[in-house]
C-alpha cells in the first residue's frame, strides 16, 4: 500500500528566515528549526500533496543534487512525519 498524499499538519505555523524556517506545532507544543533541504520540502508542500511529485519537485529545486538525494528527501519526509509535522494518508 503506497502513500497517496502528504500534507502539512494543520496544527503547524511557520516563520521563514532566508532559505530556512522554524515550525511550531500546536498539537505537540514543539518548535523545530528546519534546515535548507527540509525547508524546501516544507515549502513545496504548499504546492503538491503527492509524495512522488514532492520528491521530484524538491530535486528540481536542489541544483547539483547528489545521486542519493531522492533517498535523502524521502528520509527527511519520514523524519517530518515522525515529528508529527506532516500527515500521510495511505492509498
Amino acid at each position, binding site marked *: 500500500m503506497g502513500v497517496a498524499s502528504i500534507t502539512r499538519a494543520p496544527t503547524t505555523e511557520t516563520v521563514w*528566515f532566508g532559505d530556512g524556517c522554524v515550525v511550531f506545532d500546536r498539537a505537540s507544543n514543539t*518548535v523545530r*528549526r528546519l534546515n535548507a533541504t527540509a525547508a524546501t520540502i516544507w515549502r513545496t508542500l504548499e504546492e503538491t500533496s503527492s509524495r512522488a511529485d514532492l520528491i521530484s519537485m524538491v530535486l528540481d529545486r536542489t541544483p547539483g543534487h547528489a545521486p542519493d538525494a531522492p533517498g535523502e528527501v524521502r528520509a527527511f519526509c519520514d523524519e517530518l512525519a515522525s515529528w508529527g509535522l506532516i500527515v500521510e494518508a495511505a492509498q
Partner: protein
Amino acid sequence: MSSSDAEHPAAYRALGTSFAVVSDRPDLLEWIDDVWRHARGDDPPEHTFTLVSPTGAEPGAHWTFVVDDRVPQLVPEPEVVPRLHWEINALARAARRDAVVLHAAVVELHGVGIVVVGASGAGKSTLTLGLCERGAHYLSDELAAVRRDRVVVDAYPKPIALRPDSWPLVERLHPGLHPALAPLLRDEWFVTPQLAIETTEPRLVLFAEYDGAQSGASLRGVDRADALVRVCGHADELAVQSAGAFTALGALVAAADAYEVRSSDLVAACDLVRGLVERVRSR
C-alpha cells in the same frame, strides 16, 4: 488595619491588570509603594492582596495572606514578599491576552530596546540593573509582553529582584531597610531603577548566560532561526495561546539582532551591550 488603608489602597498596574495591597503594617505598604512606584495607577484595582501580620511576636510566626476573596493562607514571614510578587506575576501573565508573554527582562538604552532572555539564575536581573545604572530606561526584569500586532514590548516595572549571589556585584545598592522590614526581605533585594518607560521597540535580543568559568564577558551572534527557537522556549506555553503568538515572536527576532552574552563580570557585560547598542544605532 486602618479603615482608610482598606478603603483607599493605592493601585498598581501589572500588564493587563491592576492590584492593590492592604495590610496592618503601614511600613510594608510604604515600602511596596516605593518599589512599585513606576507602576502606580489611577484606576480601581482589579485584585487585592491582604497581608496581615502575626498577632504574637513568637519566632516563626506566620502571616495571613489573602488574594481577593480566596481562602486565607498562612505564609512564613520571609516568604510573604516573594509570594506577593509571585502572585502578581501570575496575575499579570494571565491578564495579557493581546500579547505574547516571555520570561525576559526589558530595558531601553539610547533608544534601542533590549530584551534579555535567560533561565532563572542566568543573570538577567543583574544585567538589567547594571544597564539601568548606566543610563538605560527600565521596563521589566521578569516579563516581556510582546504585542501581537506590531513589535512593541510593554512595561511591567516591578522592582528588580536580586538573589544573594548577585549582591556582591551591586553592593552599593543595598536597600538599607528599616530593621522592622528586614525579616520580610532577607532572601532577596528589591531595587527600582530611577528611569522607566512604558514601551519600547526591541532591536536587540540577548540570551544571558552566567559563566563562572570565564573571566570577563563574551558575545556570540545567534542567527534568527535559532533565536526564535530559543525565545519560544521562554514564552508562556504557545499551544494554549491563540493563533498568532508564534508569528509575533518571529516578528520580534526578525526585527532584532540576537546575541548570547556569557559573563561572570557585570561591568564587562554592560560594556559589551553598550557596544552592541552603538552598533545598532549607527546603522
